[in-house]
């Protein structure tokens, strides 16, 4: 299934963001506008400090811009309160971070199942969705293991399953391959790509890892708080890293 459509799922209009460090103000985003399409893996690339993670946090509703507007799945995030934003994220978004952030005391299956418990679905359904997600990332055989028994690549696959099991329309990934070796990194980016293609999910990935560029449908190059280049790399066939 390829769920690409012509309606953007994420739209940022003229957003700016700055931070104070003591009395010095650093402008991170400068009147930036972008539209992200569903069914694609969009990669925001750029050097450290260029503002790409800040852009991701604003587009995902984790923080508000100083000015400008963000629309996600047709909802204006700037008008939502903290609780509304939490509810929006619970229903519509998944996150994958550079650190895997798995609870040391939970098995892989429990890690995936935990957020589902807050969605108001039955325990049985939560268990089934968790198992399906783990199978999708090739971790069903390791579902009973604690994080201490998993490799870095396996932990990241569990983290992806945790995000995926919610069936999110928006999936945000921040440097998902930075802590992984080349093979594990390729597997993870392949998974993210397939999720976009097969589920019609909007996958927005931030990375300074140049290896990822060839796996992305679309690349937004950033520097000094602006997108200076928006391009589509040559067509890429997903690798065979994990069975779907």
């Amino acid at each position: 299934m390829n769920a690409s459509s012509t309606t953007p799922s994420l739209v940022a209009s003229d957003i700016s963001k700055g931070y104070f460090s003591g009395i010095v103000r650093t402008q991170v985003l400068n009147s930036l506008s972008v539209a992200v399409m569903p069914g694609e893996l969009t990669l925001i690339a750029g050097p450290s400090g260029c503002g790409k993670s800040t852009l991701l946090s604003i587009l995902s509703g984790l923080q508000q811009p100083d000015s400008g507007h963000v629309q996600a799945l047709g909802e204006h995030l700037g008008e939502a309160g903290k609780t509304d934003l939490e509810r929006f994220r619970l229903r519509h978004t998944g996150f994958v971070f550079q650190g895997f952030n798995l609870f040391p005391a939970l098995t892989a299956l429990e890690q995936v199942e935990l957020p589902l418990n807050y969605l108001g679905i039955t325990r049985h359904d939560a268990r089934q969705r968790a198992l399906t997600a783990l199978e999708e990332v090739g971790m069903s055989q390791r579902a009973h293991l604690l994080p201490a028994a998993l490799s870095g690549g396996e932990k990241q696959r569990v983290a992806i399953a945790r995000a995926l099991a919610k069936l999110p329309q928006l999936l945000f990934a921040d440097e998902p391959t930075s802590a992984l070796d080349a093979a594990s990194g390729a597997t993870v980016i392949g998974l993210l790509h397939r999720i976009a293609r097969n589920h019609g999910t909007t996958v927005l990935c931030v990375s300074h890892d140049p290896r990822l560029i060839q796996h992305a449908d679309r690349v937004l190059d950033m520097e000094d708080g602006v997108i200076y280049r928006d391009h589509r790399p040559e067509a890429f066939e997903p690798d065979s890293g994990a069975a779907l």
Partner: protein
Amino acid sequence: MVSLARRTLQREWRRFVPAVLAVAFAGLLLTIQLALVMGIFGSAALYVTASSADVWVGYPGTQSVNYGRNVNSDLEMMLMMNPQVAAVEPLVWVDADWHSDANTGGVPVFVVGIGTQANSMLFDKLLTAATRTLLREPRAVIVDRADLPQLGVGVGGYASIDGKRVHVVATISGLRALGGVNVLCSVDTARELDSKALEANSAAYWVAGLKEPAQAPNVVNQLGGKTAFGAFDAWTANEFALRSQLYWFLDTGAGVAVLFMSAIVLLVGIVVASQALTAVVISSAREYATLNALGVGIRALRAVVLEQAAWIGGGGLLLSTALSSALLLLAASRDVPVAMSVTMAGVCTLLVLGIALMSGLFAMRGLLRADPVQLLR
């Protein structure tokens, strides 16, 4: 539903041990302190609580039973005239000095003269009829077995009270006193030992047993207006016991000291337990932040911390109960004055759970670090 709190406690229990120990030892300190205080101050009312008399009549304004002063012997007649009264007995109280052949110096003693009849009301909860009979011997005395070393005498031995020779005929337990040693003897022996008595029939208290013990408050009211028999006050047994205990607890400053110590124990328990729990929360701050990024509300995350605190409270309570029970049994077997009741145990339980709850509330501060924006770099 996956319980993050329970799973973490099960699989990483070692990280919670400091918190459980802090709660348990705070509970232990509170319980033992309360039991000791109630045991020690309970002995202030021993004459009343160890006796089955329903009404006590004594010197006006007496604040504690061991501060008795001689009252008019006509009060016996006044009590006998009340139709509710079934029996009247005197309690003779003498503040004296004990000397033995052992090198123990002078020991302040409270000589308590009581009836020697088998059905006497005074100290009938401590004395068997057979032991009481031993007091019929002139100058025979009974003391607490734990007081023998400081009295410098053994059972069957002799000593002197205010220069008059006495014979220790038996020992019992549960007779220990505050600030001195209780010495039981017959009314006649006590009057003989009381060199300051102004009348032959002197007594510090006249106690009465009623036909219907529940009528005690009414009898006390009826006695209250009478003046023809000299100055006196009348109390029900419960009133007089409480009055004596409250005097020691509140008017001596001991109660304030106990409350102060309890507050410190509570504070230390809360600080140590909350620090341990906060450390656990902070160590998982990134994981909590990830859950929050996925839309799990901060309120739900607080509930996880509170559940952990509740489990810590439960574990601490179990440990505290086991340790306190063992220590209290040991103390009781060694004649250390301790007292425990269901109400007191309930109060201790609430305080222990309160410590855990407060530590949980403080540990929620750790969630402030669970900001998903911090995960993005």
